[in-house]
């Protein structure tokens, strides 16, 4: 008989890790979007900078950040392993596939959307996470608000950045549109009463959160965040 040791190597075990880390990353988005929304106060970044400073120096947050990276890496690694196994499961594809007849395009494109998100994330970390880290470790004063503003108001580069961030937010939206409810399903959390509610919350979350995020670079460029 099989035992619990094989769990993490089994198909359902790997999916379990995908779902759990995915929902964990969703919880991070809630924190991220909440704090960033302080930008809309338009107080020259005073409140936002105070919050950003707290997040950058609080030891509990720093500890959780490690967990966040572990979760992200686990999500990516499992996605790769599962995708490779899935490719192997159908070595010869169909000549004609009518996928639209039975599923949404974004549910079938989670790998592509995830890859776009990863590329976005590399750029995003380079823009904001890395300078903050450097400032914290060199004990330099820095103004996060001004740094963000500079990225999106820097002439042509600024416009390119805004476009890339909006594309990133769009990828996030579609990734969540499938991923949010899919995570619950994978964890076995399917219920006649609650699943329809989870699906509704998932749709609202997948639209609102990326939209609020996208309004930030647009706001800096258009000048309604100041």
């Amino acid at each position, binding site marked *: 008989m099989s035992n619990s040791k094989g769990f993490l190597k*089994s198909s359902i075990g790997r999916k*379990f890790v995908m779902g759990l880390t995915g929902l964990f990353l969703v919880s991070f988005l809630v924190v991220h979007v909440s704090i960033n929304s302080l930008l809309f106060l338009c107080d020259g970044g005073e409140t936002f900078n105070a919050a950003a400073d707290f997040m950058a120096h609080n030891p509990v947050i720093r500890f959780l950040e490690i967990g966040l990276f572990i979760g992200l890496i686990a999500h990516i690694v499992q996605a790769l392993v599962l995708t490779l196994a*899935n490719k192997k*499961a159908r070595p010869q594809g*169909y000549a004609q596939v009518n996928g639209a*007849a*039975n*599923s949404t395009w974004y549910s079938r494109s989670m790998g592509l959307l995830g890859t776009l998100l990863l590329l976005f994330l590399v750029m995003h970390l380079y823009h904001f996470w890395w300078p903050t880290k450097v400032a914290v470790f060199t004990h330099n004063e820095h103004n996060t608000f001004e740094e963000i503003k500079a990225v999106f108001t820097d002439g042509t580069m600024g416009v390119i950045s805004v476009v890339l961030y909006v594309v990133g937010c769009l990828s996030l939206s579609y990734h969540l549109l499938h991923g949010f409810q899919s995570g619950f399903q994978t964890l*076995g959390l399917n219920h006649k009463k609650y699943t329809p509610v989870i699906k509704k919350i998932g749709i609202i979350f997948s639209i609102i959160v990326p939209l609020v995020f996208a309004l930030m670079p647009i706001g800096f460029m258009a000048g309604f965040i100041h």
Partner: protein
Amino acid sequence: MAGSSGKNINVTIKVWRQKNKNQKGQFETHEMKGVSTDMSFLEMFDVLNERLITEGKDPVAFDHDCREGICGMCSMYINGRPHGPKQGVTTCQLHMRSFKDGDIIVVEPWRSAAFPVIKDLAVDRSSFDRIMAAGGFVSVNTGNAKDANNILIPKDDADEAFNAAACIGCGACVAACKNASAMLFVSAKVSQLALLPQGQVEREERVLNMVKQMDAEGFGNCTNTGACEAECPKGISLENIARMNREYIHASTIANRK
């Protein structure tokens, strides 16, 4: 048969031909003239095969048995969908009235590493049998049959178990899934017993062994696209996959055994 619509159509069939699992296959085109719209899709293939035999050619191999939608043998992937364009039917219950005059119809076998092609459109689905043998049963002691009302089962549970048991094991879920995952099939077979009192004794062992066999057969992993549920001729629900996940997670982590 009463109520014949009496129409005839011309269609072009592009059918997959493959000698055996080791040889490379290719499409073969056949013009079908004057096909009665009252014919089932398989009957149209019977006509094609009779013609091929008369011409001294090799007929197209395809699986079929009951031809009334309950055995799960017919398995054609038609115009990009398992069992063709209609929902909730097997290929034998698909009729030519679902097609238009002049249509080009592409017919392929189920494509999955775990379903190797035997010949043409016939695939070997014995991987499903091995998954069933790994745990899709209940062990029953011999002796007198018990009174039917000795074991009371809530109506809701009985209905759910019956819905799961409607699975005919045709493999359309695997064929439809972009990952060639068999999780809808396995979850239906796990569910039909997990929901009933008779299935409780082997409940944990069952899900562990069946999932282990499913993985060993080389099926892909579910990404919850829902394509299987949409294409299943028996309307097996995705809820079963969530139940199997729950059963498996419970059996591997919380269950009190080594």
